[in-house]
C-alpha cells in the first residue's frame, strides 16, 4: 500500500507529535517557567513520519525522464562554453593569444581572467580567481573560456589558444608545504588556517599514564562525482538584470560571489537554483557563473556551460586529505587520561571551505570519549593540487577514521576488547564536548550495545 505524502502529513497525524514535556505530563506553567524548553526530541522517541511509506513528490518526473536539469534546458540563440585549463600545476602566465581561436567559424567570443572586474572569490578568503590571470596554482585552474555555436566547436577552439607559461617550483606534499623553504603558493606562508583546542594539563596527564600510544593516520582526496556535472546558463534581461540558472546548491552565497566578481549590485542578479543531479557539498560555491555572465554580456546571447567529467575531477572541489598524528595516554584498565592530536589538512590550491572543514575536524578529532586533558592543533595548508572544499561531513569522516583506528591499536596493545574500551570511555548524558558543549540525547553506549547484540559480537569474541 502506498501512503501519499499528504496523508502522512495530514493535520490529525501531526497533532500526535507532542512536545516531549507535554507528552510526559509536565504542566504548561512548569514547562514555561520551570525548565528550559526541550527543542530536540528524546532519543528513541517515535515521530509520525518514521515507519511510514511515502511517495517522493519528485519521483514521477524522475522516472519518466521529465525532470529538467540545467543541461536539459535551452534558450533561443544560446551559445555553449568550454574552458581551457592549465598545463602546469604551478606557473606564471606570461602571455595568452586567443586570436587563432577567435577566427574559427562558429566561435563567437573568448574571455580571460584580466577581463573579470574583480577576479577573486571564496567563502572564507577570496583567494581564488574565477579564471587564472597572473599565475596558475593547480592543473584545474581555468585560463581561457570560449563561447561558440556548439559544444563541439567550443571544444575544438581550445586547441587553437596559445598560452605561454613560466613554470614555478611545485609543492605537492602538505607536510613539505609547511616548511619555511617550501615554494609559496599564495603570499609568504602555505599555512592559511589554524585551529587549536586545549583542555586540562595534557603533559602532566601523559606523564601519569601506564601506556602512551602514538599513531599516524592519513586519508586520501575524494571527488564527489555527482552524476550531473556542474551546469549553468547565464543571460541578461532587457532591463539590464542578470539571470543565472545553475546547479549551484547555495544560491544566496553564489549571488553574493557573482555580485562581487562582476562588481554589480546584488539586487540586479537573479539566480535560479534548479533540480540538482547530486551535490554532496561539491556544488556549494560558484565555479563558472561569472564567466558565463560576462560571455553572455559580450555576445548578447544566453550562454550555457556544462563541465566535462574531466573538468569535474580536476577543477571542482574535493574532500581534504588529512594527515593525523595521535598521542594518547591510557591507564592499564583502558581509561583514557590524555590525548594530543595534530591534523594537517591538505587544502589544495585555494581555501574554499577549508576553514569550516578544519574547525569541525578539530572539534570531532578527539572522538566521542570522555577525556579531561586535551590538545588539538590543526592546520590547513596550500599545495599545487585540486582545491579541497565542502563534502558531506566537513572533516568528520577523516578524523573518525583516525581516532577509531587509534582506539583499536590501544585496545590491542592493552589486550582489551575493542568494544569494551569504547564503553569504558564513551560520552554519557551530560558529558562535555572538547569545546565545552554539554551534550544531551547521548546514546553512544546504547548504540554500541545494540550493534554488538545484533551482530553477536560477544558470542564471536568470547
Amino acid at each position: 500500500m502506498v501512503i501519499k505524502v499528504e496523508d502522512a502529513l495530514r493535520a490529525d497525524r501531526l497533532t500526535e507529535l507532542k512536545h516531549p514535556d507535554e507528552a510526559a505530563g509536565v504542566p504548561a506553567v512548569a514547562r514555561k517557567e520551570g525548565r528550559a524548553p526541550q527543542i530536540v526530541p528524546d532519543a528513541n522517541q517515535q515521530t509520525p513520519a518514521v515507519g511510514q511509506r511515502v511517495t517522493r513528490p519528485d519521483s514521477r518526473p524522475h522516472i519518466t525522464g521529465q525532470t529538467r536539469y540545467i543541461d536539459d534546458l535551452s534558450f533561443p540563440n544560446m551559445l555553449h562554453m568550454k574552458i581551457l585549463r592549465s598545463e602546469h600545476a604551478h606557473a606564471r602566465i606570461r602571455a595568452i593569444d586567443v586570436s587563432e581561436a577567435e577566427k574559427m567559424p562558429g566561435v563567437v567570443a573568448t574571455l580571460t581572467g584580466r577581463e573579470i572586474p574583480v577576479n577573486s572569490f571564496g567563502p572564507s578568503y577570496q583567494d581564488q580567481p574565477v579564471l587564472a590571470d597572473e599565475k596558475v596554482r593547480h592543473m584545474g585552474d581555468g585560463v581561457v573560456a570560449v563561447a561558440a555555436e556548439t559544444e563541439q566547436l567550443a571544444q575544438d577552439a581550445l586547441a587553437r589558444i596559445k598560452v605561454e607559461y613560466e613554470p614555478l617550483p611545485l609543492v605537492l606534499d602538505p607536510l613539505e608545504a609547511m616548511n619555511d623553504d617550501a615554494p609559496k603558493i599564495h603570499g609568504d606562508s602555505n599555512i592559511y588556517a589554524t585551529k587549536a583546542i586545549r583542555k586540562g594539563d595534557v603533559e602532566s596527564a601523559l606523564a601519569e599514564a601506564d601506556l602512551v600510544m602514538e599513531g599516524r593516520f592519513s586519508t586520501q582526496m575524494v571527488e564527489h562525482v555527482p552524476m550531473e556535472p556542474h551546469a549553468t546558463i547565464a543571460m541578461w534581461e532587457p532591463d539590464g538584470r542578470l539571470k543565472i540558472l545553475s546547479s549551484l546548491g547555495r544560491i544566496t552565497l553564489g549571488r553574493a560571489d557573482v555580485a562581487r566578481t562582476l562588481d554589480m549590485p546584488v539586487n540586479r542578479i537573479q539566480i535560479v537554483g534548479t533540480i540538482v543531479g547530486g551535490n554532496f557539498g561539491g556544488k556549494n560555491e560558484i565555479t563558472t557563473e561569472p564567466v558565463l555572465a560576462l560571455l553572455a554580456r559580450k555576445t548578447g546571447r544566453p550562454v550555457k556551460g556544462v563541465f566535462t567529467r574531466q573538468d569535474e575531477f580536476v577543477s571542482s572541489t574535493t574532500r581534504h586529505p588529512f594527515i593525523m598524528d595521535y598521542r594518547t595516554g591510557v591507564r592499564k584498565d583502558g581509561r583514557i587520561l590524555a590525548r594530543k592530536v595534530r591534523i594537517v589538512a591538505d587544502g589544495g590550491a585555494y581555501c574554499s571551505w577549508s576553514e569550516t572543514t578544519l574547525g569541525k575536524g578539530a572539534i570531532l578529532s578527539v572522538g566521542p570519549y570522555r577525556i579531561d586533558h586535551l590538545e588539538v592543533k590543526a592546520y590547513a595548508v596550500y599545495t599545487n593540487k585540486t582545491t579541497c572544499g565542502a563534502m558531506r561531513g566537513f572533516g568528520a569522516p577523516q578524523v573518525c577514521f583516525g581516532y577509531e583506528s587509534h582506539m583499536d591499536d590501544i585496545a590491542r596493545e592493552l589486550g582489551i576488547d575493542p568494544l569494551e574500551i569504547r564503553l569504558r570511555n564513551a560520552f554519557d548524558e551530560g558529558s562535555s564536548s572538547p569545546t565545552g558543549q554539554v551534550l544531551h540525547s547521548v546514546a553512544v553506549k546504547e548504540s554500541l550495545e545494540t550493534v554488538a547484540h545484533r551482530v553477536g559480537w560477544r558470542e564471536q569474541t568470547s
Partner: protein
Amino acid sequence: MEITIRVNGQERTASVPPETTLLTMLRANLGLTGAKLGCDVGDCGACSVLVDGEPVNACLMLAAQAAGRDVLTIEGLGDFQELSPLQEMFELFSSFQCGFCAPGMIISAKALLDKTPNPTAAEVREALSGNLCRCTGYTKIIDAVMEMASRGAAESERA
C-alpha cells in the same frame, strides 16, 4: 547528413554533422532529454537507451549507426499520467533521490526483464552494473527490479 531513426515507435529525421552521437541527436535535435550525459565515455550509463532491444550507451554510438533502427528511450515507456508497471515499481520503492541516473537505470532494468523475466539478484546486479548511482540508491533499485520480476513470474504462473 540526414539521419532517420525509429524512436519510441515514430520515424524521426534530423540533419546533423557526421560526428554527432546518438545521445546528442536525441537530446539536441529531437528534444528527448530523458537520457542524460554524465561522463561522455560510456562509464556511467546515464545515457542508456535500447537499440533494437539491446541496451546501449548512447554517448558512444554515432547517430548514423542508429539509422534505420529501433530506439527506445525513457520517454517511450509510461508517461506522467500512466506509468509502465516497471516505473510504478520504482515509484513504490522510492528508488531514486536526485534522479539523474533514473532514466538509464530503468532502461537497463527493462532490457534485463524483457529477456530474463525472473532473474536472480546476482543477475540484476550484473545487468545494472553499467549504471552508476551516486546517491547510493542501489539497494532500493535492485529491490524494485526483484519485486517486478516476482510479480511478473506470479502473473505468468496464473496465465
